[in-house]
């Protein structure tokens, strides 16, 4: 079986990243062989001036466009998920990301203002979701971030979020 053909075609039609394990089983190859094949495909794309490449980490891979031509993609590019969002919504997102699972009341308490509409906006964009209820009278809803949120931040898990202090160190350097 031609492994490079299968890897490239499957990544093209897949909805989201494909786990390395899938290819390793399908092609009966080990992890380093798989990574070598992906690197080889990427070198081919690079040499041929192709505008996309296979992005991968330790667990999975996906075909994505090169970031330097982002501005030339124009209308075919999907709309930005944060388009039109205001800073209150971003604050709310940050609070949910770092305090999750968290209730609406706790969010409003931290922000010092009512946060219902920010929460709804973020929910309708698919960045946060209801993730259970707090086991106290009234059973308030708990909010968590979604898989899409992780994808948009290029993180494999919430535990990989930078510590809050890191943001400030970076900002100082820029």
């Amino acid at each position, binding site marked *: 079986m031609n492994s490079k053909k299968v890897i490239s075609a499957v990544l093209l039609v897949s909805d989201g990243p494909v786990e390395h394990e899938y290819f390793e089983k399908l092609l009966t190859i080990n992890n380093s062989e798989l990574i070598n094949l992906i690197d080889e495909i990427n070198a081919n794309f690079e040499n041929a001036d192709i505008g996309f490449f296979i992005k991968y980490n330790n667990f999975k891979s996906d075909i994505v466009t090169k970031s330097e031509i*982002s501005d030339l993609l124009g209308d075919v590019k999907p709309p930005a*998920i944060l388009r039109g969002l205001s800073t209150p919504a971003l604050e709310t997102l940050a609070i949910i*990301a770092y305090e999750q699972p968290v209730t609406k009341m706790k969010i409003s308490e931290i922000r010092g203002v009512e946060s219902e509409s920010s929460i709804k906006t973020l929910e309708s964009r698919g960045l946060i979701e209801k993730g259970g209820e707090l086991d106290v009278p009234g059973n308030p809803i708990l909010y968590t971030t979604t898989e899409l949120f992780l994808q948009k931040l290029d993180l494999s898990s919430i535990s990989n979020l930078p510590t809050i202090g890191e943001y400030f160190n970076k*900002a100082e350097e820029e």
Partner: protein
Amino acid sequence: MENIQVIENLKSLLVEYTSNTETQIANNLTMIFQSFQNKSLKEDIDNYAEFVLLGASLFELKAKRLLPQDEEVDWLDEVELIKDKDLAFARLLQFKAFTEVGLALAIKVKQTEREVPAFKYYQTSSLSVKPEIRYNIDITKFTETANEVFSRYKTIQGFSHIDKELPDLQVAIDDLLKLVDKRLNTTFEELVSSVNSSQEAVAFFLALLEAVRWGFIKAEQTNVNKEIIIEKNYE
């Protein structure tokens, strides 16, 4: 993390103040100022004048403590007052941190979105074996979502007003930086002279504040009546 530690130190100092001896108080203060020395924390503090205020309150408290005192009760009131202040400061600090973290997240999302993933789903039609569909739709969740989306539409007409009226800060920051880049040395008045609406001007002003805060550009006004001079920060 260090913030929490400092706040904890401050709290314990304040709570134990009345019963502590002078030596203990001095030790506590030393501990706090030692944690202030921590490099990353110092950078944090540069952003937060609140810490300075909090420190000032402590000195105030210490100064009062050194004065001859009549009764201990006054001190308890004083401590209660400062404990409230402490909580208020802590909350303000937390809130300001989240605002900036939110912006940092937004910038990261924007970078990630420059790489658009492939999903030629309709190409699966040429595959003899179709991808399996393994999910289920929970009828309760479906109904809840339907209820929510329609009632939201009915009550506040969706979020189109938010999308249209509020400026996209990130876009405004990018536009601003591009303009500043092009002109190197310019004035705020000149930058806003090209905007078409008051909303855009607001977006520009907010973007200016953010860009200054992040250190991308410098803004200076030597006199209230003078123009605001904008230039790129090369430091």
